[in-house]
């Protein structure tokens, strides 16, 4: 068979379950009872006096709860329904989520009522792709009876789906650390931004270099930056999208534009970094910024600059 024929055969196999029973001669695990009603009302924060005292009724929206198998499982599930679910499991649709619930209440349920129910598979959808993953919607209709009399009907739709593969979070590139710049990264680890200073002529330099570009002397020590600065220049990166640079400032996995700034520190040197806490299109030359150390993953902390509101 070619691929289309295989797909058609599969679709027909699923469709064949429509109209077949999902549960036969089901019986509620417990009669309708005051303790379960109370637990429900406590969870929902429902203080309706109709649900307590003599003459109490069960909250109508509990209809399905009386039919649930609980940890003991569903003893009344029909073979057709078990088969359908197993078939979808085998197809990789191992996860389930409920999407629709439609209940009609014919008469109220009261403590002592013994609930009986039958359920039918109304429909099985075609293959659908959702945000959660790809799968099939299965709709069942359950008639709930007490003493043979219809108390309510309950239409329920679930999505049986194959969980979408979640990409691991994208990580920023690792810094290349060598003997010329190791002191800088040692400072970052301690949340200190260190500027190199030539011990011969006192010129500050950044980024870190092996020698002084003014006098050529190789000796140096460091000055800790105060953390104050201004945006000297900036660019906004639109393309290519790079989620690692924007995910912390945007919704999960969003790979939007981001601002890269050349920040002039109060000490006079300039460094390339990101401006955070300000939308990329609100970054401006001259904008005051303040140093902040941000953790981007379990091993990477970077100095970035928080925009300071005017």
């Amino acid at each position, binding site marked *: 068979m070619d691929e289309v024929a295989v797909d058609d055969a599969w679709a027909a196999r699923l469709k064949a379950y429509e109209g077949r029973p999902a549960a036969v001669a089901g019986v509620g*695990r417990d009669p309708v009872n005051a303790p*379960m009603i109370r*637990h*429900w009302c*406590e*969870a*929902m*924060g*429902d*203080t*309706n*006096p*109709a649900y307590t005292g003599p003459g109490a009724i069960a*909250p*109508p*929206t*509990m209809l*399905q*709860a009386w039919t*649930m*198998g*609980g*940890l003991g499982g569903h003893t009344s599930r029909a073979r057709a329904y078990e088969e359908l679910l197993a078939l979808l499991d085998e197809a990789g649709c*191992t*996860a*389930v*989520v*409920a*999407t*629709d*619930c*439609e*209940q*009609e*209440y014919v008469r*109220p349920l009261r403590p002592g009522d013994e609930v009986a129910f039958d359920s039918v598979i109304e429909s099985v959808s075609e293959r659908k792709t959702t945000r*959660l*993953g790809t799968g099939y919607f299965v709709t069942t209709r359950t008639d709930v009876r007490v003493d043979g009399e219809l108390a309510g009907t309950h239409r329920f739709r679930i999505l049986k789906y194959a*969980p*979408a593969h*979640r990409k691991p979070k994208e990580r920023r590139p690792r810094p290349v650390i060598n003997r010329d710049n190791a002191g800088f990264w040692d400072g970052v680890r301690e949340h200190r931004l260190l500027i190199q200073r030539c011990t011969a002529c006192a010129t500050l330099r950044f980024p870190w270099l092996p020698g002084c570009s003014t006098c050529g002397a190789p000796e140096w020590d460091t000055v800790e930056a105060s953390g104050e600065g201004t945006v000297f220049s900036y660019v906004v990166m639109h393309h290519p999208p790079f989620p690692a640079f924007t995910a912390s400032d945007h919704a*999960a996995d969003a790979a939007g534009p981001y601002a890269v700034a050349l920040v002039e520190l109060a000490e006079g040197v300039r460094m390339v970094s990101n401006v955070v806490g300000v939308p990329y299109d609100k970054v401006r030359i001259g904008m005051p910024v303040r140093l902040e150390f941000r953790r981007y993953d379990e091993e990477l902390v970077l100095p970035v600059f928080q925009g300071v509101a005017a």
Partner: protein
Amino acid sequence: MRVGEELRPLEVPITRTLIVAGALASRDYQDVHHDPEAARAKGSPDVFMNILTTNGLVGRYITDHFGPTAVLRKVAIRLGAPNHPGDTMVLRGTVETVDGDTAVVRVLGENGRGRHVTGTVTVTVPEGERDVRTGGGAG
């Protein structure tokens, strides 16, 4: 009851406790409603509220407004964005149609992610008993 009447919004803080208590009160032991690890393995960032709890909250929202004599006839809901711990869901309702003592209320519950629940509730509020209602305490 009149067409266009808006129900006072109900703000529901979605706590882990509410999600788990609702799942157990409805006898729903699906792991995604109480086990964060299992929820993540199935593509969800955390546990999420089950549909039976949403259904119960929608029912409560309507009877809170119309009072204890209100009779729920039908509740039809569709879920969209999940309710995760830390979310706040705001339920809103508008009376869409009125036929005698029976109204259809359109309900919308939104959280920071979007529309968690949309649907309609058909409710009967017996004539003459409407004045003695003690509802409207939602909030």
